[in-house]
């Protein structure tokens, strides 16, 4: 075999041996999630109880998302109860119910929520939670909040990493307006 032939033969052998690992690593890179993809941000848990209280009268009543049949479910002292021994209207919202509500909100759209949080709450209407509440996406429950009203402020500030305690409290205590 000539020198040229031996060189060509060596190149082919090296190529044949190195190709599978290269192809495999390339494919793994394409298909498998990277560590960065899996690191989703979640909103602050501290103070969420007040956000949940704000959601209760507008979203979590027994005739809306306080129904066991709904795919997005909220629990609360005045709505659907988590423990089988509790009934609506008796007792306050429990720690387990607040925890369930937190995760109910977080897992609606975890990836988009993560992006909104990364952007410090900018453009919150990327989240269906905000669009449904504002009525900008079809919502059987209609429009429940508008920008700058108490419930909207409570939610959007929470997405920015703040707790608008006064707004959350006001949203939690909505009541019938007095006769004009």
């Amino acid at each position, binding site marked *: 075999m000539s020198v040229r032939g031996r060189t060509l033969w060596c190149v082919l052998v090296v190529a044949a041996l190195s190709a599978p690992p290269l192809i495999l690593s390339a494919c793994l890179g394409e298909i498998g999630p990277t560590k960065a993809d899996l690191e989703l941000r979640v909103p602050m848990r501290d103070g969420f109880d007040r956000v949940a209280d704000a959601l209760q*009268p507008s979203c979590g009543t027994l*005739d*809306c998302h306080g129904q066991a049949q709904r795919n997005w479910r909220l629990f609360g002292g*005045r709505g659907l109860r988590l423990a089988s021994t509790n009934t*609506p*209207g008796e007792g306050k919202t429990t720690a387990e119910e607040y925890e369930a509500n937190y995760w109910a909100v977080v897992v609606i759209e975890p990836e988009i929520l993560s992006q909104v949080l990364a952007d410090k709450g900018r453009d919150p209407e990327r989240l269906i939670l905000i669009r449904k509440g504002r009525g900008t996406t079809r919502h059987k429950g*209609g429009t429940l909040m508008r920008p700058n009203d108490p419930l909207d402020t409570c939610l959007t500030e929470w997405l920015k990493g703040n707790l608008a305690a006064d707004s959350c409290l006001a949203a939690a205590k909505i009541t019938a*307006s*007095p006769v004009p």
Partner: protein
Amino acid sequence: MSMSMSMSMSMSMNGSIRSFAYTWARLRVACGLCLPLLGACGQPAFLEDPLHKAQVAALGPENPAVKIGPLHRPGQACAVCHRVDGLATPYVAAGTVYRDPMSTVGVGDAEVVLADLAGNRFKTKTNCVGNFYVKTSEFRPVVPFWVTVQLGEFPYEMGSPIHREASCSACHSDPAAPDAAGHVFVTDDVAAIASVPVRACGAADEVAR
């Protein structure tokens, strides 16, 4: 208008009205033939939503001793039939008020007040079996709205607003459970139960508004 009347009237009318009268008469005959096919809440069987049909079936039959009207089906989900796209008069809110949480003794003359987010109010009273209803033609609340019940010295205030549900019993069903608040009552004070007035039904109770 009877079929013969519509036929005779059509003689003196112009073509389009005559055609309408004839079609109307034919429709009435056809509807009469279709009556056996009517299903839940008087809706044609072929138009029925199977889920709605199941809800109606769950209500069970009418009590033959009670005429269909304001006194019928106390404690049941009124808006299963009394809904906007149903054949019965649609209600904004309707239900039954009981004397106490343990029994199902309905109380009459309890004042029921609906108060909405915009400050609108509507008042009505329960009849002798405890039933009340508010028709959509009487009150269009700006949701959510709140309901209070007052019978003499006994008040009942809902802690939660109502957004969509017109039937009280949809949420206030028995027995009380994690997803059911139990029936609406005027007092749970055992000492006071005997003093809650309960009255017999009169002819006026059977008359719908």
